[in-house]
């Protein structure tokens, strides 16, 4: 309810901005309803509303790219060893965005040329695929590994490609929802909104989202990683106390 009210209020505001900016050429405005996502104890994922306005857009396209903090991701391939499926090959891909959502009015390859997409680093194909020295993969097409990486990350909801997810209203306003899954990794997220005309990027707007862990779960995670020995001792004391209390409570 409040969200719907907010949305309409913001839309009205955006409309006002776009009208007042009407004299300037190609004016793109975009913003998010929330700039911070909190992973709390009851967190099951959320949706962020991104809205904006742009000047004259009858044939124009919009693409939004959301990228998360860089990580190293191990891709493993199983093969059958004596009847059992074992991980036998391993590729550690470095500097990979842990989150990569593409939202657009039409598929990226329809919106712009391959060259434009490459220069602006847009789309799964233009994410660098660099392996570290520990990687151990057999001869064979590297494309299989890239495809497997994309497929598996899409399954987790951390990567996604959603053409047609952006709704354009009367050629001026646009809005979309960014789906944040429960397994999101904390850090700074970059939201790039791009305005395409005739296959070229004419404008770009960048904003950021902060994903932070809050509450009890966040504290437990932090202590477990930063003060591991203390956490271990605490876990033991906790278990001994709980076990003793249970025995006392039910002593007959």
């Amino acid at each position, binding site marked *: 309810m409040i969200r719907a009210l907010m949305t309409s209020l913001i839309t009205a505001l955006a409309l006002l901005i776009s009208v007042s900016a009407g004299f300037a050429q190609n004016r793109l405005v975009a913003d998010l309803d929330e700039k911070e996502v909190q992973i709390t104890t009851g967190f099951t994922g959320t949706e962020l509303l991104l809205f904006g306005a742009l000047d004259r857009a009858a044939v124009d396209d919009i693409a939004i790219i959301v990228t998360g903090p860089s990580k190293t991701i191990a891709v493993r*391939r199983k093969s059958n060893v004596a009847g059992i499926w074992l991980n036998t090959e391993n590729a550690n891909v470095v500097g990979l965005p842990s989150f990569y959502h593409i939202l657009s009015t039409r598929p990226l390859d329809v919106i712009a040329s391959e060259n434009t997409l490459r220069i602006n680093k847009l789309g799964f194909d233009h994410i660098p695929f660099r392996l570290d020295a520990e990687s151990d993969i057999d001869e064979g097409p590297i494309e299989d590994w890239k495809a497997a990486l994309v497929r598996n990350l899409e399954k987790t909801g951390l990567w996604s490609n959603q053409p047609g997810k952006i709704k354009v209203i009367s050629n001026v306003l646009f809005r979309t929802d960014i789906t944040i899954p429960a397994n999101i990794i904390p850090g700074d997220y970059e939201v790039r909104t791009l305005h395409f005309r005739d296959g070229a990027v004419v404008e770009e707007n960048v904003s950021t989202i902060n994903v932070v862990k809050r509450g*009890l779960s966040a504290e437990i995670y932090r202590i477990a990683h930063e003060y591991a020995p203390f956490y271990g001792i605490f876990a033991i004391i906790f278990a001994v106390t709980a076990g003793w209390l249970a025995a006392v409570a039910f002593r007959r």
Partner: protein
Amino acid sequence: MYVYLPIAELSMNIFTIIGLGGAVGMLSGIFGVGGGFLMTPLLIFLGVPAPVAVGTEANQIVASSVSGVLAHFRRGNVDVKMGLVLLAGGLAGSTLGVALFALLRQLGQIEVVIKLSFILFLGIIGSLMLIESGRAIMRSRQSGARRGKLHQHNWLHGLPFKMRFRKSKLYISALLPFGVGALVGVLSAIMGVGGGFIMVPAMIYLLGMPTSVVVGTSLFQIIFVTANVTFLQSVQTQTVDIMLAGLLLLGAVIGAQLGTRIGSKLRGEQLRGLLALLVLLVCAKLVFDVVVTPEDLFSVEFLR
């Protein structure tokens, strides 16, 4: 109602966790078994990463063993000296086990090693239990079953470092309980179990301990071995989720109380047969997991 588990890093229904704790707790109440050997695979089936299931379960077993051992201490059913020798082996074995666990995790092989270990042990234990309960049912229908020899002498009794265990009425080589403790310690670290299901038969058949002190002594040393595993896993692999352990424990405490009451009213042999079938079912599911061609040969994992 969902709760975000900080170490497993996933959202899970709070009632599913408590329910699972309750169900396994009830089984342990009915049969007097630890339950770790069922809890760890069931957590894996629910989507908890196998290493986190193992680390967390070790922590939970500390609690259930503490509450179990108190009653045995009151009845004087703990052979502390034997427990300490077993424990010395257990600490060595579990320390080695956690190091092995960390290495296998780095190599990307820990999931399959955990599953294969469970397949092996659940398969053996389930089959033995099924055969044993089948025989017991047969025996109860016939009468006048013969009794075998209590104690047999073999090469194991010729080992050095003999030690006297008064409470167990034994004079045996300390290497024997040390070895048993070490073996179970390794399993405890890799499988997240207390190891009672191996320790108890080993104490009776291998060491020749009187059955009255077996369970209490086993629980006594399990507390310290699983505490050691909890600490080392916390430091080396960060796989102990106290949120998950706490919720499981909550269910297990209630379940165990119900189980003890139910257990005293039911026929033993048929129940043991049922538990054996359940163990074999879990084993079969694990076999299926590692043998059937995966939907996707590739998998991904975030490293750092």
